[in-house]
C-alpha cells in the first residue's frame, strides 16, 4: 500500500513539475509579447514522447542514462520534505543525502549522452560539470550558515525551527539568501547560465541524441528537478510550515528565475564559472562570517 502511495506521490509531483514548465513557457511568451502554448502542453508533450515508437538508441548506457537520471531525481524527492509533509521513509531529510542524490541525475544523463558519441552532447556535459564547480559550491556555502545556526544537518528540522514570516532564514541570513539565489539560477540551468542546453550553440547539448521515450524521461526528470531544486531552496530559506506554502514558495521562486531567464542573455562557460567565483562567492563567505558573528 505504501509503495502505491509512493508512486502516486511521485506522479503528482511530476505532473506539478510539468505544469510549472508549462507556466514558464506561458510567462516567457507573455514577456516576449506572444501568446504561448497552454499550461498543460508539457504533459501532452511527454505523453506523446512516451507513445512514440522507433526511437534511436546508441547502446545500453545510452538507454539507461535517462532512467538513471530519473531514478536520481525521484530518490532525491523522496528524501526532501515538502514543507511539513514528509514521505514515509524519510529520516528527517539529511542535507548531504539530498545533495549527493541530486548529482545522480546529471551523472546518469551524462553517462547516457556520453555513449552517443556526439561531440555536442559531450561538450554540453563538460559544461554542466564545470558549472557545478560554480553554483554547487555557492549553493552549499549559502545554506551552510542556516544549518550551522540551527545546529542540525536535517532539512526537516531546519523547517521546523523556522516559523512564520519574520523567522525565515532568508531574513536572518539575507546575504546568504542572495548568494543562494545566484546559485539557484545556475542550479536550474536557466539563463544566463543556460550553457548546458544552449540550443543555438550545441544543439541542446546532452539531449541532442535523445528522442522519444528517452526525451520523455528527461522531460519528467527536468520537471521533478524543478520542484526538488526550488523546493530545497524554499525549505531551507523560507521554512514552509505546510505543503501549500511549500508549493506557493517554489512557484514564486521559480517565477523569479523564469523572469530572469526571459530577459537575460547567455554567458560563455568560462564567464559563468568566473562569475560564480566573484560576487556570489564573496557573498556566501560574508554569510558564513555573519553566522560566526551571530554566535
Amino acid at each position, binding site marked *: 500500500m505504501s509503495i502505491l502511495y509512493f508512486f502516486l506521490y511521485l506522479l503528482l509531483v511530476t505532473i506539478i513539475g510539468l505544469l510549472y514548465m508549462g507556466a514558464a513557457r506561458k510567462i516567457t511568451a507573455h514577456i516576449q509579447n506572444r501568446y504561448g502554448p497552454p499550461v498543460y502542453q508539457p504533459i501532452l508533450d511527454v505523453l506523446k514522447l512516451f507513445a512514440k515508437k522507433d*526511437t534511436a538508441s546508441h*547502446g545500453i548506457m545510452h538507454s539507461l542514462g535517462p532512467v538513471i537520471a530519473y531514478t536520481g531525481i525521484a530518490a532525491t524527492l523522496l528524501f526532501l520534505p515538502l514543507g511539513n509533509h514528509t514521505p514515509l521513509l524519510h529520516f528527517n531529510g539529511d542535507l*548531504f*543525502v539530498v545533495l*549527493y542524490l541530486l548529482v545522480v541525475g546529471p551523472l546518469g544523463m551524462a*553517462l547516457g549522452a556520453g555513449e552517443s558519441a556526439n561531440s*555536442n552532447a559531450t561538450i554540453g556535459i563538460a559544461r554542466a560539470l564545470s558549472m557545478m564547480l560554480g553554483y554547487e559550491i555557492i549553493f552549499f556555502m549559502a545554506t551552510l550558515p542556516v544549518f550551522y545556526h540551527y545546529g*542540525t544537518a536535517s532539512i526537516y528540522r531546519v523547517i521546523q525551527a523556522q516559523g512564520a514570516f519574520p523567522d525565515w532564514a532568508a531574513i536572518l541570513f539575507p546575504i546568504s539568501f542572495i548568494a543562494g539565489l545566484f546559485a539557484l539560477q545556475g542550479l536550474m540551468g536557466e539563463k544566463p547560465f543556460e550553457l548546458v542546453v544552449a540550443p543555438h550553440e550545441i544543439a541542446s547539448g546532452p539531449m541532442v*541524441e535523445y528522442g522519444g521515450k528517452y526525451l520523455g524521461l528527461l522531460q519528467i526528470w527536468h520537471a521533478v528537478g524543478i520542484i526538488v531544486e526550488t523546493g530545497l531552496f524554499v525549505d531551507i530559506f523560507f521554512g514552509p510550515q505546510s505543503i501549500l506554502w511549500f508549493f506557493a514558495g517554489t512557484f514564486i521562486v521559480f517565477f523569479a528565475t523564469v523572469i530572469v531567464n526571459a530577459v537575460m542573455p547567455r554567458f560563455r562557460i568560462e564567464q559563468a564559472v568566473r562569475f560564480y567565483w566573484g560576487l556570489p562567492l564573496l557573498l556566501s563567505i560574508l554569510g558564513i562570517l555573519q553566522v560566526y558573528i551571530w554566535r
Partner: protein
Amino acid sequence: MAMFYLLLLLVLVGIVSFVLGPIKVLRNIIAFLGAVTAFFYFLTNIKPGLIYSLNIRVYNVHFEAGFSSMFFGVIITALFIIFLIASFHEENDGAYYLFAYLTLTGALAVLFAKDLISFFFFFETMSLFSFLMVLKGKSDTSFRSAFKYLVWSVFGGYAFLMGTFLKVYYTHSVMIGDISYLAGGVKLLILILLLAPFAVKAALMPFHLWAPDAYKDSKDTFTVFFSGGLSKIGVFGYFLVLFKVFTEIAVKYPYFLKAFAWLGAITAALSGIYAFMQDDAKKLLAYSSISQLGYVAVGFGIYTHFSVVAALFHALGHAVFESLLFLVVAGVYYRTKTTDLRKMGGLIKRMPLSFIGLLFGIIATSGIPPTIGFPSKWLLYEALILKGDLLLTSLVFFASITAFLYSYKLVHGIFLGKLHEEHKNVKEAPLGYAFGTVVLLVPLLVLGIIPGLVIKPIDYIVRFYLKPELGYNLANMNTPLGHVNFPVVGLVMGLTFALSLFIYLIAGKSYRAEQTDNYTATEAIDEDFELHYAGEFYGFMKKAFGRPLTWSFEKILNAFLKLFSFLGEVARGFYMGDARVYLFYVIAFFALLAYLMGGKL
C-alpha cells in the same frame, strides 16, 4: 611469534619466487599460494594485543599487533592478493615478485612495529623495495619517477628518524608511547617530524610531488597495490602519531590540527583540480587518489570521534574504489596498450565488465550513495559542521565536486564516445583483472549499504582515544546533527530505479543506431569523423581559473634544488685548482689555526 612467522613466510615466498623466476607457472602458483596463506594466517593467527620481541643481539625488534594494525593489515594483504593475481598477466621476472613480497613484508612489519627504530627500519625497507618496484615499471620515464619516489620516501624516513632521536633524547625510550608530558616546543617539532613520512606516503600536499609520476609509471597492476595499499601506511601513521604518540594533541596544539585539516582540504581540492586537467588515465587517477587521501587528513585534523571514524572508513573506501579504478585501467591498458584518454573511447561495448567496475568505482569516488564512498563523506561533513569550521567544510565540498568532474572525464575518455578503429577487436580484460574487479565490487556495494559492518571495528580503534559520540548499528548512524539509515537510501534508490525502468519498458520501442548515425547539423559524417571529444575536455577551465592552475609546488621545490646545486657548485669549486692552490690551502689553514689559537699557543 605469529607475526614473525608471517613476515618470515612472506620473505621466504619472495625468495622462492625469485629462484623459480624463469619457471613461470610454478613461480606464479607459489607466489599466489604464499599471498593467500599469508592472508588467512593473518586473519586466523594474529590477534590484537599479540606481542613479540625479536632479539637480533644488536637490537631488540619489538612487535605488537593492535586493532589498527589488524585493520590496515587486512586491507593491505587483501589488496596484495588482488594485485598478484592480476600481475600474472604481465611480463614479470622473479625479482619483481621478490621485491613485491619484500614491500609487503616491510609494510606489514611497519604495522606491527612497537618501537620507533624498527619502525624506521621497516619503513625504509618498504620504501626501498617499492622504489625497486617502480624502477621496474613500464614506461621510459619510470626511472625518473622511481628516483623521485625514492628521494621523497627517504626524506620522510629521515625526518621520522630525526623525530625518533629527539624523542629518545628527551624520553630515553624508543618505544612508541605517549610523550605528551614533555614540555616545550620540541614536542611540536617531534610531532611534525614524525608525521612527515606519513604525509609523504599518503601524498599530503606539499609532499605529494612524487605520487602522480610514481603511480603513473609503475606497472599497472602494482599501482593497484601501491595506491590502494601502501598509501594506507600513511593513514596508519597519522593514526599512530596523532593518537598513540600524542594523546593530548587536541588540548595542546589545536592549531596544529587545524592546519593539518586545512592542508588535507587543500590537498583534496587542488588535486581534484589537477586531476580533471589530466589527459592520462593513470595520472588522473593518481591525482584522484591524492585528493581522496586529503579527506582522510581532514578527518584526522578535526579530531573528533566520528571524524576519525570517517577518516578510517574513508581510508578503507579509498583502498576499495581507488584499487578498483586502477585495476580497471590496468585491464584496459593490457588490451589497448594505452592509458591516454584521447586515444581510447567507446570501449563499453568491448569491455562491459570493466565498464561496470569503473562505473561503480567513480560513483564511489564521487561519494554517491549507495556505495562505500558515501558513509565516510557523510560522516565527515557532519563532523565538519559540528566542529563549526564552515569555510573548511566548503573547501571539502568543493573538492568533492571536482571528483564528479574527473570521474566523468575518466569514464567518458575510456568507455564512452566513439570506438576507435584500432580497438574494434579488443576483448574484455583477462581473468585476473576481472576477478579483482568483481571481488572489489562486493565491499564497494555491501559496505555502502551496510556500513555498520566495518564501523564497529573502526569504532573499536577510535573509542579508546576519543569520547564516543557516534551512535550506530548495522544500518543506522546517528550523530548529534543528523541521522542516516543507509539501507533505506539504497532501498529508495532501488525502488525508484525500478519505477524508472518500468516507465522505460512500457514506453515505445527503440532500435539500435550506429555511432555515425548522429545529429551533426548539416555535416556528413563517416568512420573517420572525429566524434570522440576527450582531449582538452575541460580546456575552458584554464580560461576560467587562469593563472592559479599553472602554479605548482614543483617550482618551490626547484628553487630549493637550485639552492643546493649552487652550494654544490661552490663546494666543488674548492677542488678545482692545481697543486699550488692545494698547497696554499694547507698553509692558509695553518695560518688560520695559528691565528685562532694564537692565545693558547
